[in-house]
């Protein structure tokens, strides 16, 4: 049925199987859209957020997702600017992941605000001092860049190439790609930073407040580095996942190693910077503002363990694993380290968003707790489902892994493997 859409030389499962695979995700998406609609129509009272927990699950996950999506810009940066050509093998996949993460995050943000119809005021009456303005501008611009970067992948599709003008268009785009990569990198660096700045500038919340280097608080730079560190790790994980699910080799064996090395390197830098930052904050920044550092960690359940987990368990450890050639050569070690790195950054975003709001600021405040409502969870699941769907389609109809074809040619599949393929299984 849709054979003529599928890239030459690669095998994809039958349409029926594909639909079967899509069904659960479509259902999930439907449920998510329903809960999002509830919030939009009935208002934010559908969530469990309140005046004290003004931000909740959504902001936390937006920050996480955007950090994971950073693989797109960082790989692009390494490939097009630093000319590490091996990364060509995953750049398309990275771009799709980036697009999914960013567009998803933006959609959730649109649900998260009380009056979406006024969201454009930020562009018309921007407050240049606000980190959120910076974020809004950069994310929307970078989303456009990602869309344009995504186009050539789409245009490479067999059927579309039959339209001559499309071919020309794509050719033109390709000349542009370096510019785009450059712009994208700049924008992305910037807003990853401003996302960190969001909390670093909260002088009213000494737990989040950080002193500045130049214009921005230290969290600005920490977020950039951490994002750059987990981006490759996340690509590593997704690629492996796709290989497992589709039962195909998609990239040459040296590529994951390279990704792991980059990730490990950045992670090491991040852990170092984070440690220094934490020490400065605990011993100077916070006490100067009347808040003794130790007291933050005496509100159960947020003890010092959270600090340890964030920096050592999910920071230092994976960094070391990824840095040692022997360990990262082993897929098991490599993947678990990558996973840990991702968890580490997620934990960091959780601490910055949720713990910041949970901790009391006034002496007569209680410690606050918050559990998301099903509408909040549902809305976010919609983004996950949407991501899987977009990726699945892209994987089926576009060439996300250029090496896939060559790999098939080099290593003719074993018999059972061939049977599987002819049987049209993933």
């Amino acid at each position, binding site marked *: 049925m849709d054979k003529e859409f599928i890239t030459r030389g690669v095998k994809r499962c039958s349409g029926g199987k594909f639909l079967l695979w899509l069904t659960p995700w479509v259902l999930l998406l439907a449920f998510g859209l329903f809960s999002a609609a509830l919030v939009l129509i009935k208002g934010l009272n559908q969530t469990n957020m309140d005046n004290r927990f003004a931000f909740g699950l959504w902001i936390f996950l937006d920050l996480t997702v955007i950090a994971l999506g950073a693989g797109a810009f960082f790989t692009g940066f390494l490939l097009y600017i630093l000319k590490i050509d091996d990364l060509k093998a995953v750049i398309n996949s990275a771009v799709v992941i980036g697009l999914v993460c960013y567009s998803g995050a933006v959609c959730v943000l649109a649900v998260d605000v009380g009056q979406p*119809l*006024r969201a*454009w005021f930020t562009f018309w009456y921007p407050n240049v001092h606000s980190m959120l303005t910076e974020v809004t501008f950069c994310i929307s611009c970078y989303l456009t860049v990602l869309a344009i970067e995504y186009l050539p992948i789409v245009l490479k599709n067999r059927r579309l190439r039959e339209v001559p*003008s499309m071919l020309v268009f794509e050719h033109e785009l390709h000349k542009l790609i370096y510019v785009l990569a450059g712009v994208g990198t700049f924008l992305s660096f910037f807003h990853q930073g401003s996302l960190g700045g969001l909390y670093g500038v909260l002088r009213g919340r000494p737990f989040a407040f950080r002193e500045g280097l130049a214009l921005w608080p230290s969290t600005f730079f920490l977020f950039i580095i951490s994002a750059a560190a987990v981006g490759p790790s996340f690509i590593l994980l997704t690629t492996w996942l796709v290989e497992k699910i589709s039962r195909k080799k998609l990239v040459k064996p040296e590529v994951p190693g390279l990704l792991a090395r980059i990730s490990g390197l950045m992670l090491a830098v991040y852990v170092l910077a984070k440690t220094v930052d934490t020490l400065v904050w605990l011993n100077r920044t916070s006490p100067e503002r009347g808040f003794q550092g130790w007291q933050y960690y005496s509100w159960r359940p947020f003890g010092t363990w959270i600090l340890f987990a964030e920096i050592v368990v999910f920071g230092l450890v994976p960094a070391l694993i990824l840095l040692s050639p022997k360990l990262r050569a082993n897929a098991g070690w490599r993947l678990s380290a990558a996973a840990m790195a991702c968890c580490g950054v997620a934990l960091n975003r959780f601490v910055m968003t949720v713990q910041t709001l949970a901790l009391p600021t006034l002496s007569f405040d209680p410690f606050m707790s918050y559990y998301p409502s099903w509408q909040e969870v549902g809305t976010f699941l919609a983004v996950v489902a949407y991501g899987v769907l977009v990726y699945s389609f892209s994987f089926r109809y576009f060439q996300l892994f250029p090496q896939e074809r060559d790999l098939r040619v080099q290593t003719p599949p074993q018999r059972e493997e061939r049977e599987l393929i002819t049987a049209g299984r993933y």
Partner: protein
Amino acid sequence: MTTRRDLFKITGGAAVGALLTPAPWRMITDGALWSENWPGIPRPARGEIRAKFTNCTLCPAGCAMKARCVGDQPISLAGVAGHPLSHGALCPFGIAGHHLPYHPERLLSGAVEDAAAAIKKGIGEGGRIAVFDTRPGRTASWTYRRAMASLPGGLYLRPQAALNGNAVDLSAARTVLSFGVPLLDGWGTPGNVIQARGNFRLIQVEAIESRTAAMADLWLPTNAGEERAMASIILNGGMDHIARELENGPVLVLGPEDWPEIVELNRKYGALGRTIVSRRDAPVPDTWKDAAPEMEWADAAEGSIRVLLIDETAPGAYVPWHSLETKLSRDAVVVAFTATRDGYARHAQFSIPTAVFPEALDDIPAAVDSPAGVFRLSTSLVPPAAGTIDPAMFIARLAGIDAASALRDRAGAICRSARGNVFHYADSKSTPMKEMKADAFWKSLNEGACWIDDLDPKAPAPKLVARAATRASNVSLVETCGAGLVSPLFSKLHEESHVRLARHEIALNPAGGFHDGERVALQTDCGRIAMTVLLDPSIPPGSIQAATGADVLDLCGGVTGAKVVRI
């Protein structure tokens, strides 16, 4: 023939063109503007801002009020600065009083004809008819007494008179010893108490750190139910540091008035005649002198009343139903004149809707802390709701007497007495009564004025009488969203914060083993009411703090040994 590509071309052109027109931008802007006029949001009425004056009837204090009106509609209330009694202060209940006519739970309909028929039947069968008046001394009260005098076997019943009908002169006190009296939380005239607060030392004996205890100079925590024991210890000089405090007179001792100890303490420390004085009430026309006498409800014979008419339009002391009930004959007819379903309406066969503040025209007698008699009107700021009945008119018609001009007649009588001064709210000036004509007096009363009597030079020495004392309850009741209606905005004070207890909320010590928000039942010999628990470590173990409310008073009034049980 057109191809798909042609379509692309046209659409492209159209898109570019559209962007060069105001249309898309207008729509984006309008979208945002539309959200300014969000559907369903009321627009405040505009018009000329005017000031009107009245007096609050929500409690016996009768504080003076300045209403800010758009046209004729009051939109906010404030105190009248410089007022000799209320000193410009209002309590939260008064501040939002102008919302009461729109209260969703207001009683607006009742079987008036049936009630009238049932009453006539009752009287026809020769039974005793009685009016129970929650706020005696009003002109309406006099109308009831006149009506009852003209009806065979008519009785006029009133709650127990505070301090035996005497008044408190706080300004004279140097030391105030209070046994659980909410002196700083709505007692007497709040503005007057606050005014006098600087001059006296307050010793509060109370189990719970109430608002008053928290603000007292000295708080003596006792175990719940042991306040009276503490009183007799102090009386017998058992606590010498307190005794020393009490030497700094003049002293005023406040507490449950049926305790002999309170009376004795006041005697011992010479309060009588100095901080507790007898008051001369506002004069009435001579033609009213043949009115039925005031009788305390407790003195009525058991099972004697065939028809009981309860006027609770002017909230005052609430007598628990289980006590009042004993006075009724078996086939008694009970009619409640009320604006709420929460009060005696729960027990009456007939509930007749009445006007609420600030609809009703009424007068407010002197509060307990006013040594001088006063006369002031609560003029209606908004017209009474359709279907409401004026109880005084209703009962007057029942007895066939004319009371339409009662208020004006009384104003005339006061004017003739030529005593005291009239304080005008608009310009906070006072004019001697003797300099005013009756019409001018009546006019200024309606525009906002207060007549304050001279202190009686040859006033008799006040008397206090002790009675058979009831035992103290372990439930401490705080005036919250109590009997009667309160503004819906009181949600700010309980639902949206925890400044006050909501109705059917009880505060307990966490040690009690209950958890926050748990549904429990408050139980006494008189029954049980479902309550919600709020944990508060400042409540001592074993004590219960609850918000007053007719049903809670029915449950806990005059009984002891209340307990909280799981449902």
